[in-house]
Structure formats: structure tokens, C-alpha cells
């Protein structure tokens, strides 16, 4: 629950005694807190329950604004494929409600708690604010793709709504998706609305064994370029969760379709390797580990990077970084998402990782590192100055007094 979670947050930031935590009971109260903070120019840390507090640049503020008390599902229309909830609603509650109607969030949000060593219940607002997307991103889009509407309080203390509850909506600027992944720096989310999809009747996973990273990406690419609607495409090199390398392709849907597609896909990928099939239960368990980066949780003193590139560029990038940083890694998103663990000493590899990502036209996020490192190095990929200029201007347009989570993504933003 929020209380327990805040205490773990306290320990990593400022002493509890000097900190004020605001837990507004409603949107109007939240607006007052922010208006007051803006008037006094007192920055606020923005959080739900704080399970992803250790993500992003290390910042320190006196005051905290939590959405924990803004809880409750406000709309669920199964036949319209839509759910809305106040930002502080636990993700688990949203998933439970959807499960009752045999539905789910399309984007398979990951759970960062094990990786970041946090506790508490992740909130739906936190999912939106961090654009939290899992393995199914390759088929069903990211969190932002299902994010239909939001209510938020801007840095002036004004309540703003954007988007709505319908899937097709091009009325005005898309401030909803702008909020996704902004880590609260542009607005304090109070209510979020998502598109949902029917839960698949079943799933199965093809496992190809013993492929090199390069061959594995080629196999995943062939699978994703097939008509069989692969919904998960990952590669676990030797030593990641098992002795030998495993390349995984997941199929989801109606029982009959999954049965047919599993055979057809195995046949299409025969030249890469013979395939073993995991049943629904094994498949679900393994993809949960992929989703939550379970393989890299230990040892806890390593730094974790999340690198996003075009899939075909992943092998070269790993060749460069793997040796230089003595890293361990695995690939999701058909190779387009590299999870990499390396030593946390010095800059935790920030210079070479960002440089390698830049050369391959991708980007890297330092997901786990000691506070001191996160305070000192670029956590998010540095961007060219014209984009930084726009970034600052957008921030200024929503939060002119710079009170919402300043510095969480970039210094001065």
C-alpha cells in the first residue's frame, strides 16, 4: 500500500522528518497543492505509490505529491473496450476488473519492483506516466498507443482534460500521449482512460535453441514478418535463465488458431532450428520473466540499461558493448529492446552505452544504478539541441514555474 511504499522512497531521498507528503483526496485538492507550490516555487516530486521512484535522474525535493488517495475505477464498458480509473488506482485492481470480463490491457505493462528493489502496489497513473510497455508492444503497441484520455493538473494548478474514451479521436492536440512517458514533469495525472482488448483464450511459445544473437534476431525477424501474429519475440543468450541460448516466439489467440499457427510458424522457421513448444502455463511463466527482466535482477549491485534500436542493429551494438563492459544481456521486441547489465562503478557505462546507441540511431535509458551515479550521468539519452529547445519550451508551456518533478528526465526540464 502507499504508506509502506513511501517509506522505501523516503530512505532513498530526504530524511522523513523534513519531508511533506501531499495526498490530495480529489482533483480540486491536487490543483490547490500545485497552485500553491507554483506560487511559492517549491518543486514537488510526483508519484503514485513510488515503485518506480528509482527510475530516471536522481532528484531531491522537500515536498511530495502522491496520487495514492485518488483511487477507484470510474468506467469499464467491456463491449466498448474501454476502462478509466483515477490515477492512484492499483494496477492490480485494474487488471482484476478487466479479468472478470476476460479482458486485459493490450501493452502488458512490466513490473519494475524486483528489478528496482521496491515494494508497494504500482498504480495505473504510474503506468501511464512511465509509458510502461512489455513484450506485447511489438504486436499491440506501447502504453501510449492504448492511452485514450487523461485528466491532469498542469504546473499552474489548472485542471486540464485531453482525449476521451473513444478509440478514434483527433480533436485538438494529443496532450494525452504527451503525458505518457513524461514522468509527471508536465502534469499530475488524476484520471486515465485506456483501450482494452479481449484476453487471448490461450497461448503457446516456440523455443528455438542454441542460436547466436545474430541468428536469433534473424529468426525473430522472420517470425515477426510471418502472417501468424507473433505477440512476443525474445532471445535469451546462453547463461540467461538456462545453460543454452533460447529464442522465443509467442502466439496468442483462440485455441484452434494458436494450435494451427504454432505448427505453421515452426515449419516456417525450420531452417533456423527445430522448435520445442511451451504450453500455455509454461509460456505465461516464461514471458513474465522476460517482461520483468527477472534474469538480470541479481546480482543487485549491477547497473541495468534499457536500449531501444531497430532490431537488426542489436547484434552489432551488443558486440561492441558486451565485451567493453563485461555485460550480460537479453533481447526483447524482436531484438529492438536490449536489456543489459554491467558494472555500476564509475559512470555505469553511460558514455559508451549512449554513444553506441546514438551511432545505431537508438537510445538508452539507465534503469538501475546507485543514486550518486544517477545524479551524475545522463540517465536518458542526450538529444540534439533543437529537440532539447523544444523539450524545454513544451515543459515551460505546461509548468512555467518548474514545480512538477523538475530534472527527472533532463537537467533543467
Amino acid at each position, binding site marked *: 500500500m502507499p504508506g509502506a511504499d513511501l517509506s522505501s522512497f523516503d530512505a532513498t531521498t530526504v530524511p522523513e522528518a523534513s519531508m511533506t507528503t501531499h495526498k490530495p483526496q480529489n482533483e480540486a485538492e491536487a490543483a490547490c497543492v500545485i497552485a500553491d507550490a507554483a506560487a511559492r516555487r517549491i518543486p514537488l516530486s510526483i508519484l503514485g505509490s513510488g515503485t518506480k521512484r528509482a527510475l530516471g535522474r536522481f532528484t531531491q525535493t522537500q515536498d511530495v505529491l502522491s496520487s495514492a488517495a485518488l483511487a477507484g475505477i470510474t468506467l469499464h464498458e467491456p463491449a466498448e473496450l474501454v476502462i478509466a480509473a483515477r490515477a492512484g488506482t492499483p494496477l492490480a485492481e485494474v487488471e482484476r476488473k478487466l479479468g472478470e470480463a476476460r479482458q486485459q490491457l493490450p501493452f502488458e505493462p512490466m513490473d519494475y519492483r524486483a528489478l528496482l528493489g521496491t515494494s508497494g502496489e504500482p498504480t495505473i497513473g504510474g503506468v501511464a506516466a512511465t509509458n510502461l510497455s512489455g513484450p506485447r508492444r511489438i504486436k499491440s503497441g506501447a502504453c501510449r498507443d492504448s492511452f485514450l484520455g487523461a485528466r491532469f493538473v498542469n504546473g499552474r494548478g489548472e*485542471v486540464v482534460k485531453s482525449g476521451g474514451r473513444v478509440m478514434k479521436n*483527433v480533436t485538438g492536440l494529443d496532450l494525452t500521449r504527451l503525458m505518457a512517458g*513524461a514522468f509527471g514533469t508536465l502534469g499530475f495525472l488524476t484520471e486515465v482512460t485506456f483501450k482494452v482488448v479481449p484476453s487471448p483464450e490461450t497461448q503457446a511459445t516456440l523455443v528455438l535453441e542454441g542460436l547466436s544473437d545474430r541468428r536469433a534476431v534473424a529468426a525473430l525477424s522472420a517470425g515477426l514478418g510471418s502472417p501468424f501474429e507473433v505477440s512476443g519475440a525474445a532471445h535469451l543468450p546462453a547463461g540467461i535463465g538456462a545453460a543454452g541460448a533460447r529464442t522465443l516466439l509467442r502466439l496468442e489467440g483462440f485455441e484452434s488458431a494458436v494450435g494451427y499457427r504454432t505448427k505453421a510458424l515452426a515449419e516456417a522457421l525450420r531452417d533456423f532450428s527445430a522448435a520445442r513448444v511451451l504450453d500455455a502455463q509454461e509460456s505465461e511463466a516464461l514471458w513474465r520473466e522476460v517482461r520483468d527482466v527477472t534474469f538480470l535482477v541479481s546480482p543487485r549491485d549491477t547497473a541495468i540499461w534499457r536500449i531501444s534500436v531497430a532490431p*537488426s542493429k542489436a547484434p552489432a551494438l551488443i558486440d561492441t558493448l558486451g565485451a567493453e563492459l563485461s555485460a550480460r544481456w537479453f533481447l526483447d521486441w524482436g531484438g*529492438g529492446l536490449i536489456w543489459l547489465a554491467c558494472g555500476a562503478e564509475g559512470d555505469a557505462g553511460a558514455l559508451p552505452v549512449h554513444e553506441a546507441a546514438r551511432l545505431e540511431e537508438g537510445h538508452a535509458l539507465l534503469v538501475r544504478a546507485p543514486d550518486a551515479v544517477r545524479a551524475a550521468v545522463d540517465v536518458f539519452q542526450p538529444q540534439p539541441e533543437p*529537440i532539447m529547445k523544444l523539450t524545454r519550451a513544451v515543459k515551460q508551456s505546461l509548468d512555467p514555474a518548474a514545480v512538477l518533478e523538475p530534472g527527472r528526465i533532463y537537467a533543467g526540464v
Partner: protein
Amino acid sequence: MSEIAFPAPDRKILARRDEIIAGLRRVLPEGGVIEKLDERRAFETDALTAYRQVPLAVVLPRSTEEVSAVMAYLHAQGVPVTPRGAGTSLSGGAIPQEDSVVVCVAKMSRVLEVDFANRVARVEAGVTNLAISAAVAHEGFFYAPDPSSQLACSIGGNIGMNSGGAHCLKYGVTTNNLLGVRLVLVDGTIIDLGGAALDAPGYDLLALVCGAEGQLGIVTEATVRILRSAEGARPVLFGFPSSEAAGAAVAAIIGDGIIPVAMEFMDAPAIRICEDFAHAGYPLDVEAMLIIEVEGSEAEMEAELGKIIAIAERHGVTVIKESKSAMETALIWKGRKSAFGATGRVADYICMDGTVPTGQLPHVLRRTSEIVASHGLRVANVFHAGDGNMHPLILYNVNDPQEQRKAEEAGADILKLCVEAGGCLTGEHGVGIEKRDLMGCQFSKADLDQQMRVRQAFDPAWLLNPAKVFPLDARS
């Protein structure tokens, strides 16, 4: 002329026309600037033909660098810019103003790179929507968003309006299929947002640009996702004795966990108009028809259709007709996709684009008929039922100013109805000038002020497509 106002043109700019054209000629090669009145007229409107304004000049750049040079020059001169792709906007998004220069990207029409391994294509902004699919079809791939104007409309315009189409129920709209853009900012600065990776660092500026109707910059290149086509696809026609029955069947199909790739609705007037045009074999003795398309292997399509047919039967379906050949499939879609053109043969029309929660469809359809009838006009409904994106076509005579006024009033009432029902003013056509003055129905002053402040972060002087989206009297 119309009731939708344009900002008063800046007399000083009009007076400097010769000088501005000379300046444009200095930064563009021969043939890049259009200045003769009869040639400029070709750019005076788009598919919202009731409104027209002849622009100061038109430029036809052939590269990002040329767009950049034009923008830098016009920015320094303080001249407004109207971005334009193929000019197929139904909301007036590409209609210029007298003191603006149209920057038309139609000549930038190359497919730059197709990358099957990474399932992306990089194209110039003037490439047509259908040309992207055509460029990747030999490997069995396609580009998913499919607006009805896909033969003509440009990807640059699709990005400007965040266009949708019939198959968005499964595959999403433009913003869900767009990974990156090269964008020329108002001062000529060239930036790249996103790329071939599935996400980008920092703020999601790409999401802002998509659907911004050309107010944040000029898109010159796009990186889009391409998808592998299903093994097979088959549309099936379902005829119902009432619109309510058809609407209830749609809700029941989705409620049963089935997401067909498309679910299109037509009412009796629309069926007749489209059948007369396309001879697609649509049933004429029904009040409403759904075109439901399923995808997959033969066995998968059979299985899914079986479930859909069972649901349709529970809702009183009277006609079920499956496509038996590729030709029939093409005809069925031709009928649907030519709905606007076919309607244009029988009457002038304005096309609304509101979206409503699907549960509200029967109510909104009934009220739509009542509203249009109360203005003494007729309506045909053809729309994307699975996602509640409605397209009432209000029929009127464009040469009768009174009828035009009535049609516009009826349209405004319908859009207000959509907002009241929990939906929005526009699902895929954009606000443009057409719905600009209705924005206050959907958004509060604080909502609009915030959107305008974000807009100003990109274009502080309001030079980019300035007459669009935001009510003129709401601007500070």
C-alpha cells in the same frame, strides 16, 4: 461565402507580394514557385469545397532542404504558411488564406527505404497512402491505416490529421503506425523525431506532431511500420431489419472477445447509393448493413465467421452474404470506400466525423435522423461501427445558400450530440476550419488554453496554418 471566418489578411503582407515571391524564387530552383492567379486557384480549397481562399503564392519544394530554406525565409518575413499534401482534407485543413504561402509537399513522393527485416518503410511526405502498401506488397506486407481517399491522399496529410480508415479497429490509426518523422520547424530548423526503433527518448513529441494539422512544423519524411498481411481476408455482408439491431450485433461481437479486422455500417440510403455506383451485390431490402471482415487461414476465418454468424442470428440478421472470390471482395470494399464519391453523384453533401461510445450508436443514429429531418434535409450513414466513428452524410444543394446554412446547422447539432454522448467532434478527419468553432463544446477554456500554449512552444508567432483548429476568439 461562409459563416466560418478566416482571420483578416495582413494588408502589409499582401502589399509585399512581389517582394515575397522574389524572395521565394531566390531560395527555390526554377519551377518551384507558383504565382499566376489561375495556377494558384488549384490550391484555393481541398475536399471541403464550400470554402476557398486564393493563397499569396504556392511553393513546390523537392527536398527537406528546400522546405527548410522556404520556412527560414518566410519566418524571417513573418508570412503565414499553409502546409499541404494532396489536398484531400474533408475539414478544410489545407485551405489557405490570402496572406499565406502554401507549402505543398506533393513533389516529394519517393519511397526512400523499405526495410523488411525491421518492418519499417521510410518515405517522403508526398507519397500517397496506397503507394506505401504498393511498395511493400511484393513481400506480402502492407501499411495499415487506410483512409477512403488512400489512392490520392499523402502520408504527410495523414500524419497531419492522424488519419484512420476502415481497418483501424484491429490495426490502429496513423499515430499507432508512425515511428518517426523528419520535421521542418517554423524557422527552418530540421529535426528528426523517433526513427526505426519502437520508442524514442524524452517527451513524445511525435505524438504531438501526429494530428497537429500542420501547426507544429512541416513533415517532410516519415518512418512507418509495415505489417505482414494475413494469410487471407474475407468480408461478409450482414443485412439487418433495423439500425438498432445492427448496432446491438456490433456490441455483442466485441463483447464476445472477437475483434474483426473491420466492421463497417451502412444505413438504407447509403446502401442504395453505393450499390448503384459499385454494383457490389449489397442487399437492398434491409434497413442496415454491416460489412465485417475476418482474417487468417481458411480454418481460422471459418471459425471466427461461425461465431460472428451465430451472434448476428441472435440479433435478427436477415441476409448473410460471404465474398466468394477476390473480385467480390474488391467490389464489396469498392462500394464502401467510394461511399463519399458515390454520394457526390446524387447530391452535394457535408460529411460529419464524430465518434461516440459504441453503446450510444443506436441513440445517436436515431437522433441524427431527427436532427437532419428537422432541417428539412436527408442523411445517409456510413461509418466504422467497431470504433463508433460515425460519418453522417448530410445531403443538400450547394447552390442554395439557405440549404447550405441548414446543412451546416444540422452538422453542428450532430457533432454536439456526439460530444454529449461521451464522444468527440472528429475521429479521423481533423478539426480544420470546419469544426474549429465547435471546439468549445468539447473542451473547457483551460483545456484549449493549454493546447494553444503547447502549440506556441513550436510556433510562438502563429505562422503555421494559423486559421485552423482553435476558435479565433479563444486566442489570447
